[in-house]
């Protein structure tokens, strides 16, 4: 039973059965989150450390709430208030945390591979909460849970991932998971934002948004990383919004009942028009609510005493 693994680092390492187990487990925690007393004693006596080397409100809060609803003790640890600024390495920091009997470390880091490095160096379970441009497994899992919650089957599902795919860990994790479950994944964006050879991951590449949206059931928008404007990936924000911004007219090109997703925070009026973000087809707030249930499920499954 269970995930039979110490860490959750990448969705490439999970089987379709593992993914389905996580989604099924999240269902139980969705019920817990709907109760008057939103707390169960499953992780009583366990310690979860949120180790965030990059700013994050949404993911950190979501993990914190998930751990607290499972009755775990939670420590939030961020580099600005730690010894990292004094030159301590990632592993030194983690080992110090481990010496405090941390059972699970949730890591967010700006370097790809940081979670794997950490997992090799500590006995605690490590959950990757985003490492550079590499992966963000729990975001993809909550996206899948949101899609499934809309009654959609993954086999034969058509999903368009729109925007800066090259710099998106969310896109990568979603591609791995969705293709594993039998969905057809399309990526669309300006050529400067679509990595070369991404088709080797089993996705279809489009550069024209209108073409990519025809017949899709799920439109997954990515945040335009405005801090990367200086990298000359596109001429102007205005042009990007015209070419790749999601409008109500463009949503109509997709299948009837198609849903619009976004990992947040959204740039209203750039990658997504305000009336789309607030429309009935938008499941952006469902994603946030589901994030807590999915992370509760993951923390629960990772909280065994290991091998």
């Amino acid at each position, binding site marked *: 039973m269970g995930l039979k693994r110490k860490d959750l680092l990448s969705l490439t390492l999970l089987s379709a059965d593992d993914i389905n187990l996580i989604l099924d487990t999240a*269902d*139980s925690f969705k019920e*817990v989150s709907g109760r*008057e007393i939103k*707390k169960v004693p*499953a992780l*009583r006596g366990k310690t979860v450390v949120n180790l965030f080397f990059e700013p994050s409100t949404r993911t950190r809060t979501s993990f914190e709430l998930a751990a607290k609803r499972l009755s775990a003790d939670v420590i939030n640890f961020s580099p600005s208030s730690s010894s990292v600024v004094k030159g301590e390495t990632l592993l030194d920091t983690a080992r110090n945390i481990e010496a405090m009997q941390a059972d699970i470390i949730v890591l967010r880091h700006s370097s790809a591979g940081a979670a794997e490095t950490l997992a090799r160096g500590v006995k605690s379970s490590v959950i990757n909460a985003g490492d550079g441009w590499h992966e963000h497994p729990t975001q993809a899992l909550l996206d899948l849970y949101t899609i499934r919650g809309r009654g959609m089957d993954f086999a034969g599902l058509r999903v368009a991932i729109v925007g800066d795919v090259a710099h998106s860990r969310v896109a990568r994790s979603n591609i791995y998971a969705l293709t594993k479950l039998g969905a057809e994944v399309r990526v669309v964006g300006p050529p400067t934002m679509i990595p070369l050879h991404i088709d080797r991951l089993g996705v279809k590449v489009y550069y024209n948004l209108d073409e990519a949206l025809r017949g899709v059931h799920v439109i997954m928008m990515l945040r335009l990383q405005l801090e990367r404007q200086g990298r000359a990936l596109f001429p102007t924000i205005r042009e990007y919004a015209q070419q790749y911004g999601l409008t109500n007219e463009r949503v109509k090109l997709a299948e009837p009942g198609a849903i619009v997703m976004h990992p947040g925070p959204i740039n209203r009026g750039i990658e997504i028009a305000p009336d789309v973000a607030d429309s009935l087809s938008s499941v952006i707030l469902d994603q946030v609510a589901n994030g807590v249930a999915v992370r509760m499920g993951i923390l629960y499954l990772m909280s065994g005493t290991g091998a």
Partner: protein
Amino acid sequence: MTIESEAGTRQERVVMDAGDIARALTRIAHEVLERNKGTKDLALVGIRTGGVHLAHRLVRRIHEIEGTQIPIGELDITLYRDDLSLRKDQPILRKTSVPFKISDLKVVLVDDVLFTGRTIRAAMDGLIDLGRPAEIQLAVLVDRGHRQLPIKANYIGKNIPTSRDEAIHVSLEENGEEDRVVILKA
């Protein structure tokens, strides 16, 4: 008779057949109604997985006897187990579904086998997290003894003394099996 199992060859002895189970449940339904003076403010909650089908059968019997439909819920106690922090792999969760407010109700927990009492302790914790019942009662099909906690059933289908190395297996039609209770002896 002898059956093959993962644990090797085991002796199997039938201690309740379909008729015994049906009669025990009918009696328990009458006892529940008698003790609670009817169905007012009464609800049944089956403990997953063994108690759920039995709870549904009891609700049907109570309806046949009294003509009223009482609320029924299903409780998964996994998150309240006292061995979660000791396990290598966490057990599979199933959904709790108690689609009514339990506060101020008399709730009868239903399970198939009462053994150490740890499951019932977990079930009471789980139930109390959903509200504040006026009373919690316990109905079981089989009480096999070996209690590790001070817990006692209000309604018992059959007391079956067992040794620690024996296992009790309750099979039910709802799971595609024949209704019966067997003792498996190593």
